[in-house]
């Protein structure tokens, strides 16, 4: 039996000793994916510090420097490692900042969807009755409607509700809402399913006989026990959310070109695929692909690792 130790170092040690960490270490692809993801995160979080330029500081853009190729090519300027785009923005910096936005949209929408979905799933599963029926019918409708169409609709409505001059600044929130509101169903269904099971579990009954309140039971007893699958869905959805943002961008409702996400960079760069300025599209695409791939690989692993049946 392992000694329990509540100190942080102790927890760290017991994590390092845990099955989860062991299975992580054993899966080489996952380790590589995690490393890549960590690198991307690092780049995104510290973009203002490590990016060679600030692509949002338009006062310092000089069109004369536009469309420079990557540093190792002829006619390049070594200050711009990955070259510049048509607006003379440093591609590397744009990618770092774009990554920041993509990751923000991805995370925020996943968190929104997860919080909403988990909450609705918990309530639906625990309270049951009409509340549950309404939640699940709405979920059915949403589920039977493709995500990008729903996102398009929500996006349209959100833009309508906001005053016109805030569209640009609110674009990121609109996207988060659109993607988040589209994706909560999966969480809600999963959590509801587990809640229905957990609710019948005897530890919940035990808490009820003691007189613990409903909300408290939901939050302190059931919630921690249904989070496993949520984590898995969230990981995989993170990749999907980033891609959805890119796709919405392609359809013209994504992030504006003034605060480009990876998706916007790709959409804009896409037009230059034939023209020889390949670096404005290849590098952002590769970054996006690595990001989504890494997230999916980790999600895959997590699903297997958290599935008790597979152990």
């Amino acid at each position: 039996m392992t000694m329990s130790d509540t100190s942080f170092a102790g927890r760290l040690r017991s994590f390092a000793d845990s099955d989860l960490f062991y299975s992580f270490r054993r899966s080489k692809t996952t380790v590589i994916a995690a490393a890549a993801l960590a690198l991307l995160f690092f780049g995104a979080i510290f973009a203002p510090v490590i990016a060679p330029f600030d692509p949002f500081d338009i006062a310092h853009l000089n069109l004369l420097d536009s469309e420079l190729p990557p540093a190792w090519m002829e006619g390049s300027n070594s200050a711009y490692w990955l070259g510049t785009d048509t607006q003379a923005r440093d591609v590397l910096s744009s990618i770092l900042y774009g990554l920041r936005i993509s990751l923000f949209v991805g995370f925020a929408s996943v968190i929104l969807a997860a919080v909403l979905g988990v909450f609705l799933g918990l309530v639906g599963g625990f309270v049951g009755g009409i509340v549950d029926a309404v939640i699940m019918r709405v979920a059915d409708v949403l589920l039977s409607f493709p995500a990008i169409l729903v996102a398009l609709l929500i996006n349209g409505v959100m833009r309508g509700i906001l005053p016109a001059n805030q569209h640009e600044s609110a674009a990121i929130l609109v996207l988060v809402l659109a993607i988040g509101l589209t994706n909560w169903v999966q969480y809600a269904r999963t959590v509801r399913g587990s809640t229905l099971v957990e609710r019948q579990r005897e530890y919940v009954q035990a808490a009820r006989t003691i007189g613990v309140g409903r909300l408290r039971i939901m939050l302190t007893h059931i919630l921690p026990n249904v989070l496993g699958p949520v984590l898995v869905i969230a990981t995989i959805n993170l990749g999907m959310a980033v891609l959805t943002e890119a796709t919405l961008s392609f359809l013209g409702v994504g992030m504006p070109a003034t605060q480009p996400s990876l998706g916007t960079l790709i959409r804009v760069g896409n037009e230059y695929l034939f023209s020889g300025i390949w670096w404005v599209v290849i590098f952002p695409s590769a970054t996006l692909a690595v990001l989504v791939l890494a997230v999916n690989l980790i999600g895959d692993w997590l699903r297997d690792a958290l599935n008790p049946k597979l152990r």
Partner: protein
Amino acid sequence: MFVFLVRRLLQAVMVMLAVAFIAFLMFRYLGDPVNNIVSQDATQQQREEVRQRLGLDDPMAIQYGRFVINAAKGDFGVSYRNSRPVSALLAERLPATAELVLVAALLSLVLGIPLGIYTALKPRGVLSQGLQIMSLIGISLPTFVTGILLILVFSVWLGWLPSFGRGDVIDIGWWSTGFLTASGLKALILPSFMLCLFQLTLIMRLVRAEMLEVLRADYIKFAKARGLKNRAIHFRHALKNTLIPVVTIFGLQLGGLIAFAIITETVFQWPGMGALFIQAVNFTDVPVMAAYLVMVSLIFVIINTSVDLLYNVIDPRLRTDPTRASGKGA
């Protein structure tokens, strides 16, 4: 069964009403169709006239009500852009989308299921792991980028396949089909591949996961204990059980295919409903957009209902009580 269909019908009506409502809410903010209809230097008075003729000056609720009533009669109004009845426009483009989606769906099944089985039965094989990673890479790029890359490689560099359009089509009644001509079939390859890539991956991964799950089931263990042949165990007992969730997801994804066709059709200039929808969005062609959304939701309801009915074929437990199928997973 009858009750089941009635319930689905009610649900369908509700979905479509809701969709139409949201669509109307949204259209107000998509732009002003009048600008696209009158010439650039039209006077304010001309604009007002057009607005009035199109009924755009009525309150939203009235516009919505009118739309619903007319739609119930099968009349979706007239496209602002093409001055033709929306139903005719949609009918014209339905075959293109239907064929594209059908081929993509079949491709994803025909490739996805065997690959999924293979990777499940040989989970540690090099080829399996390669396939797994490849499939993930396939869905890690936005589809529009994949589409352009496909064109670049297969049309521009290799010159094997057309970069746009449906090729030659043959009319059978009001249906135009590209299945009967060589160029039509050739034209289908790239777009349907691009469209199916995501579902293909999904189905492959799903089949694999479900298969692994099923292979651990007690009845498989018992089947082994009875000494059945591996072939029978894998392809009779395991596969059939695997198919139940696959059918659900496939049904849901069919909806996704129709939606993603918007992007494929844009990239490949495929003359289908998705391309029409995008044009309509660009033009604020409200009747077309509304009709498209309503029609797509109708199609989804039909698909979902068929999927649920399909369950009964596969799963005898549901035959007595098809309502149980509605508890399907995501």
